[in-house]
């Protein structure tokens, strides 16, 4: 992850940052509370030629645009041997009579006919980051992370199903307009969330397995994420991916670039609102990944005893190594080693998913954005 390797901070500065972030409560360089998000500017439906779009600008100057386009595509014909059987019997015309009725009915029935028919390849996420090739590690990692969160509940891909011969293919194009100053995952994820919420798909007027024909009135088009309430009274919403960071015993949300430079561990957690009735918390985890913290690439400091300009003695290599190991990063900065405790990951998940947690704060904030 190239742009984070050259962190312009000295070992002394890193050590200072680490100590202040491990206080209780942590003291962050920009004075935020541990779970507080940076302020952001957001607008949706900005691109007239896309099915849905959004723009978000963070206070640190990073900005992203997402455009969602939907195209009708012919579905791949399933296995030749069994394909013939299908069209004659079990799934084909024979049951067509039942299917006739629910074309004009409510969402609920239509969702049931579509359940399990979507394919994961129908959603395509492309990320463009200035100064990086599209096959660099960072864009590939980010798009895999966002795609797996979107597909986790299986509802989105089912909504792309039109009939047995055709489906929608959804292209989600994410453009980072500024340089990636901090790790751009939350920014891109929030923008994608808004763009998908504003995505509309033309209403279908053809029936069953005919070639699809759509209503050309844009006013009649339907939202990809229906605005109607679910059984539990919540809205269906695309997931958001949030970055959580741990420094000694503290957990911090939405880390800035400087905070990432001293992180013990960074975890990206994707959450979506729960749709079930008897759920304890309002949000559920749909995907989780640890992110390689850039702090592991920082240079270690030199203990005073080794610094010949400050009165230290020059020691042999073995003695110097023993001295550094004995110091264990207590007096000078040393890049973190090892991983993160299980309890810490559980704590991060809880902070994001609990009622009144970070996930709720972000999603409610984004719900206030007018389309």
């Amino acid at each position, binding site marked *: 992850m190239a742009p984070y*390797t*050259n962190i312009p901070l000295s070992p002394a500065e890193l050590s200072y940052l680490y100590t202040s972030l491990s206080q209780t409560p942590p003291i962050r360089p920009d004075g935020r509370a541990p779970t507080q998000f940076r302020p952001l500017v957001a607008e949706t439906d900005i691109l007239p030629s896309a099915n849905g779009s959004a723009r978000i600008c963070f206070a640190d100057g990073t900005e992203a645009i997402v455009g969602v386009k939907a195209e009708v595509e012919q579905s791949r014909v*399933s*296995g030749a*041997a*069994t*394909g013939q059987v*299908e069209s004659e019997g079990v799934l084909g015309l024979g049951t067509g009579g039942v299917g006739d009725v629910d074309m004009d009915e409510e969402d609920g029935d239509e969702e049931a006919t579509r359940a*399990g028919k979507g*394919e*994961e*390849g129908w959603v395509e996420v492309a990320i463009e980051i200035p100064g990086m090739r*599209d*096959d660099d*590690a960072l864009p*590939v*990692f980010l*798009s*895999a992370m966002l795609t*797996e*969160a979107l597909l*986790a*509940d*299986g509802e989105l891909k089912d909504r792309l199903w039109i009939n047995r011969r055709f489906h929608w293919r959804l292209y989600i194009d994410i453009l980072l307009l500024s340089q990636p100053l901090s790790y751009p995952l939350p920014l891109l994820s929030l923008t994608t969330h808004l763009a998908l919420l504003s995505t509309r798909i033309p209403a279908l007027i053809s029936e069953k397995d005919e070639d699809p024909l759509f209503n050309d009135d844009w006013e009649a088009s339907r939202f990809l994420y229906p605005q109607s309430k679910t059984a539990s009274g919540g809205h269906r919403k695309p997931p958001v991916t949030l970055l959580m960071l741990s420094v000694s015993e503290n957990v911090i949300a939405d880390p800035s670039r400087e905070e990432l430079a001293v992180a013990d561990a960074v*975890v990206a957690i994707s959450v979506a609102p729960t749709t079930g009735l008897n*759920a*304890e*918390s309002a949000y*559920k*985890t*749909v*995907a*989780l*990944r*640890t*992110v*390689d913290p850039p702090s*592991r*690439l*920082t*240079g*270690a400091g030199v203990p005073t005893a080794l610094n010949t300009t400050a009165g230290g003695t020059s020691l042999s290599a073995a003695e110097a*190594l023993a001295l550094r190991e004995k110091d264990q990063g207590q007096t000078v900065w*040393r*890049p973190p*080693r*090892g*991983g*993160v*405790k*299980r309890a810490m*990951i*559980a704590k991060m*998940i809880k902070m994001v998913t609990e009622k009144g947690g970070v996930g709720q704060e972000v999603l409610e904030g984004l719900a206030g954005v007018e389309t």
Partner: protein
Amino acid sequence: MQADRRRINAPAGGTAAPVFTFTGNEDLLQRPTRTRKADEHRKIFLRTKVVPSASGSAYYEIPPAKSTSSNGNLVPAASNLKITCTVHGPRPLPRNAAFSPNLLLSTHVKFAPFATRQRRGYIRDASERDLGVHLETALRGVIIGERWPKSGCEVVITVLEGEEDGWWGDQQQGSEKSGGWGMMSVLAGCITVASAALIDAGIDCVDMVSGGTAALVRNPESKTEEVVLDPSPPEHEIKAACVVAYLQSRDEITEMWMKGEVGEGTEFLTDQAVKSAMMTRTVLVEAVKEGLEVEGAVESFNGAPKAAKGKGKDVDMTD
């Protein structure tokens, strides 16, 4: 991504071994079932020092299980896993490279074109690059990088046979459920084999890292959900899965990848994945010891090395 124009590529669509034994009776096609217990890992074969020219190398295999639906089909029902790993370095960075205070680790995961039913190209695709990033995260945490300033180290993994994402019979019947679950078992294998190769190369690590997977699966008969260790995707209907890279002596996780509809059970799923990683570690420890004994035997006597003590012995996987 640009197309590969330097070679003559095979057709883009996958090729599948022909199935000859159809007698018109569809019941012949039976989904393989899990024969081991829910908390049991498949047997692992692991050996270090397989590539003499590399500074460290290892080979990992989950050997083919006895087929549960052996009705004369030539195509095996469940998939296996065969991974080789070579480690090159630590070696000096090229002269024109920028200064680095730490060991620069680069990981490279590639599926052989014939590794899965769907053919892979020669150029790494997005999922392979993604696996490489996961592996790098897992290894970066254990390597003590500051002991090798201005050096680089490459971990190259070739997957010779990869876990499938689902049962091939489903593909034949057109109800393909991808989900990428096979990738998670592959990642757990990659972590373990890379760890063995790193130790073989003699690179300082804080602990031995081992990979483990667990999945939340739905039992189609009883309609209940349970958590199983080391899932083989053809045998299960997977709802969610979790991979961890676990350091047992520090009780820490350097890499975690979870996806799917877990609901409230994230903590339990993680604990089960850790349990699976602990089981893998027992094999990893024995393989490393065996490698050291072979090395010791060769160094002490430059004739025929005496047979290492634990060689060819099965290890009981305990946690």
